[in-house]
């Protein structure tokens, strides 16, 4: 096992983490501001990927597809916020879980109805395909580097949005005291729709970017959704910084666990068996991480209150 391989795996873990952050950012924002658990976030991710694939196929341009993915998922987000989600803010978590679970069913089968049952084609743009050689002789896919850059850019953008803009001030105010900002004449309903659409747009962007190197198919959103929930719970729900740290932690744990655990078990077991036991444990590892974090910090790493 060479140092180069370990560095490459760390890079892979970071990249996976950034991908998860794109998904988790919207989720944690929506929970932080509106107190809503949105299981349908994975469906918005799927809508982004399908919109990107469909537009890229029709126009031949990945970038138009990317724009379409943000637009389509933000529009879908705004639509369900106005039609459904809005009625759930003052309900308990149970109703929110059920209603958004129902939305998953509607979106999944609706997408299958529109696009059919077969996976769609979506490839990274010409300019970003292939691998580049990094210092130290590591060959690394250019598109994955682009994902890392895009994810960090989104993170920076979000911090700026929340910390330094008028909308951000309102969002932070909405988190702490709803009545107060309503009294100040801010249109709460419109603010919530904007925040929800923003979260949806981020999910759509993630779906489009990730869809280019994965499979664009019905049901692609749910596994990522569960991971994104793990991320925001570890980070502390509602905290964008927590989501970033949680995402990187989960990304690194998963990638390095998959890589190192079988090697570690190989020291005490015959190769085939070590592989089986090691990878079984690796697939449970992030849930183990989450349980451990919550046992010692029940509010998550960056959570404000218990």
């Amino acid at each position, binding site marked *: 096992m060479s140092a180069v391989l370990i560095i490459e795996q760390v890079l892979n873990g970071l990249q996976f983490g950034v991908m998860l952050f794109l998904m988790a950012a919207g989720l944690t924002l929506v929970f932080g501001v509106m107190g809503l658990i949105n299981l349908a976030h994975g469906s918005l991710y799927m809508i982004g990927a399908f919109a990107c694939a469909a537009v890229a196929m029709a126009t031949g341009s990945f970038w138009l597809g990317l724009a379409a993915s943000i637009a389509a998922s933000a529009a879908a987000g705004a639509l369900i916020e106005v039609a459904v989600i809005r009625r759930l803010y003052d309900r308990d978590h149970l109703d929110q879980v059920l209603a958004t679970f129902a939305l998953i069913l509607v979106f999944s*089968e609706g997408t299958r109805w529109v696009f059919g049952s077969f996976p769609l084609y979506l490839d990274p743009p010409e300019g970003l395909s292939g691998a580049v050689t990094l210092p130290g002789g590591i060959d690394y896919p250019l598109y994955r580097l682009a994902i890392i850059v895009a994810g960090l850019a989104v993170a920076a953008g979000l911090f700026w949005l929340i910390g330094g803009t008028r909308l951000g001030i309102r969002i932070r105010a909405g988190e702490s005291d709803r009545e107060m900002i309503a009294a100040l004449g801010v249109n709460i309903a419109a603010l919530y729709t904007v925040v929800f659409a923003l979260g949806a747009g981020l999910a759509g962007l993630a779906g489009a970017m990730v869809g280019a190197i994965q499979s664009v198919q019905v049901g692609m959103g749910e596994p990522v959704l569960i991971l994104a929930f793990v991320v925001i719970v570890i980070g502390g729900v509602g905290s964008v910084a927590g989501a970033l740290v949680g995402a990187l932690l989960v990304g690194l744990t998963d990638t390095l666990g998959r890589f190192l655990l079988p090697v570690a078990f190989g020291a005490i077991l015959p190769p085939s068996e070590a592989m089986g036991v090691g990878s079984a444990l690796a697939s449970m590892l992030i849930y183990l991480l989450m349980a451990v974090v919550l046992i010692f910090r029940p509010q998550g790493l960056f959570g404000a209150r218990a």
Partner: protein
Amino acid sequence: MTRRIAMVAALAALIGGGAVADTVKVGMITTLSGGGAGLGIDVRDGFLLALKMAGTRDVELVIEDDQQKPDIAVQLADKMIQSDRVDVLTGIIWSNLAMAVVPGAVRQGVFYLSPNAGPSQLAGKGCHENYFNVAWQNDNLHEAAGAYAMKAGYQNVFIMAPNYPAGKDALTGFKRFYTGKLAGELYTKLGQTDYAAEIAQIRASGADAVFFFLPGGMGIAFLKQYAQSGVGIPLIGPAFSFDQTILAAVGDAALGVRNTSQWSKDLENDANRAFVAAFLKEYGRLPSLYASQGFDTANLLLSAMARAEVEDKAAFRDALRKADFASVRGKFRFNTNHHPIQDIYVREVVREGDVLTNHVVTVALEDHGDAYAAECRM
């Protein structure tokens, strides 16, 4: 959930001679909703096409969606056997669903014709006289890949599959025929979508070829990421990741990859030419491996119906065992454990106009049975 499809037109005229015009009730349990629906739809469409081409009105078909859930599949099988009183069951795509349904169903006297799954348990000790597999035993395509790797002179192969029973069978099957060195052996998480860590290990392993079994979306993701990574080590895999249903989504990343299959759309025989043309005309898309298996399953059934009445179980079983139909894959006969003995080909992914498809390159294994037939006592 019931859709009854009554087949119109006359069968007797076509089959002639010893035809026994008696209705056979067939229950099809397959996956028609959710992410895995594409496979079930193709099996169903292939099956329906065969009935339509035969012009039979003697098959009464009940089709139900198993949602890819084993408990639902078992309950549907109970319903079809108890309430619909079907004579024959078919349609299941996934091995775990087949394991849930088949042992119980065949013991209740129903025939089961498998259009896709072939778990090793049902080929060996758990074989049954009423169970016929019309596709392959699960290990077959992987064994062929192993044989091809030997033939092509690879000496240091990296092998990889998801960590579940079919994945372990795949690697075992490959190793049964590939006896060279292994550069690495990896099990991935079922449903995994990111393969950066695995690709890095492949790059570092110094392998001269990579064998992988990653069905469905997993294979699409792996192939795209592999193409992006710039690792140029040749890939070998079973047909599942290079099938017509998937190739369009993988794109150029699949070009040139050698894969093993018992069927290809360019196989030169009359039955296949007629099937490919008719499927394209009927559904407006090229047939997949799954469609070909559904088509053969229906034709096997029709061939048995022409020889015997389904009420006479022993006679009908003998008629099925004869496999007296023109398979779209050419040669086809049943082994002692009612699994196919057939040729398995190596195909290469090529571009034809603006669609990606496969061409047969060579034969990997001729008249190939499976490793479990000896354990089967019928």
